[in-house]
């Protein structure tokens, strides 16, 4: 069984949703792929099925998955693109300003950070 640690910070259904989102972004789940059934996920992760249904419902509301009658949930064709644009927007609006602020506070030069010949950019 996959070991999974739920954190105390957010509701479990949201953490489950985030896991699926991460798998979509990483390309582990592709358009047309089936999600495991609510029952399977509930049993495997020892969650109540209502929690799992709720995560799936939110993914469906975001149009990342769709219900096919009698068959279950499938990743939609546009899922990756839709997700990429919303994740980009989130990064630019929420995360990047904070990163930029920190870069400036530490007196670093953004262009130097991105220069691969520069010592900080080296891998």
């Amino acid at each position: 069984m996959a070991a999974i640690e739920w954190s105390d910070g957010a509701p479990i259904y949201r953490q489950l949703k985030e896991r699926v989102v991460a798998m979509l972004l990483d390309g582990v789940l592709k358009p047309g792929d089936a999600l495991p059934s609510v029952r399977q996920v509930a049993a495997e992760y020892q969650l109540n099925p209502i929690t799992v249904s709720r995560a799936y419902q939110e993914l469906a509301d975001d149009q990342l998955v769709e219900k096919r009658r009698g068959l279950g949930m499938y990743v939609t064709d546009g899922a990756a693109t839709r997700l990429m644009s919303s994740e980009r927007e989130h990064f630019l609006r929420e995360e990047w300003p904070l990163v930029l602020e920190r870069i400036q506070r530490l007196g670093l030069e953004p262009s130097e950070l991105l220069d691969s010949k520069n010592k900080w950019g080296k891998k």
Partner: protein
Amino acid sequence: MMSASLKSDVVTARGLRKAYKNKLALDGTSFDIPVGRIVGLIGPNGAGKTTALKAMLGLIPFEGDLKVLGKDPRTERDELMNDVCFIADVAVLPRWIKVKQAIEFTAGVHPRFDAAKCWRFLKGTQLTPELRVREMSKGMIVQLHLALVMAIDAKFLVLDEPTLGLDILYRKQFYQRLLEDYFDEEKTILVTTHQVEEIEHILTDVMFIRDGKIVLNATMDDVGARYVEVLVNADQLDAARAMKPIDERALPFGKTVMLFDGSDPARLAELGETRNPGLADLFVATMKGTYA
């Protein structure tokens, strides 16, 4: 969203009262259990858990109004038992019985038992037809018991410390089977256990019982929304106390953890780091002074 109020309740209990010699095991206990839920009944030893279960199963006399699947367990126990199953820590399978005989016997006495289904549930276990209960480990006995019960497909399943004394593999498997092969929105499970951490994500609802009274009865969603634990910064102690925490404990290095019920999350976040307490934390805080 599914509306629980439209569905009938599996259990309605009003003012249950049961006295043993000089102690009240149930003291005006009232609660409802809607269909399609997995409810945890959690309480310290001697709080009245088992008495409440026995009342629902019609095993003891008591005072008050109680309906289980619309029936009074005191007067309609036989009909009720067609739709209710029970697994307790106390083994009820005779030591001499073989797997095969246990299945044949259940098929003979229970109209809704499906023997083929039971054999299917036993696939992948070490339980073979000729094996006797006396030759089984505790975990195997529970496996057999669970397979028998799930093959009855009862509407209401009552579990009293079902995994007590089992190793972690059997415990995980027990709940996994239950979720995979038994539970659906037409079924209802009531479970008592001391291993709160293990089942808290499985539960949809939780009840805390103390001294025969239900002191908390909420959906797990409500619990998550209502209760917040704050690691209060030293300079915020007075401000935090003014918000009336229901519990407070000091940690080494000057930090204090406080538990709040229904306070504004935005204001709590100003006091320090916040998190959702686990059921175990909540239980300890609620039951303080029980054995004092």
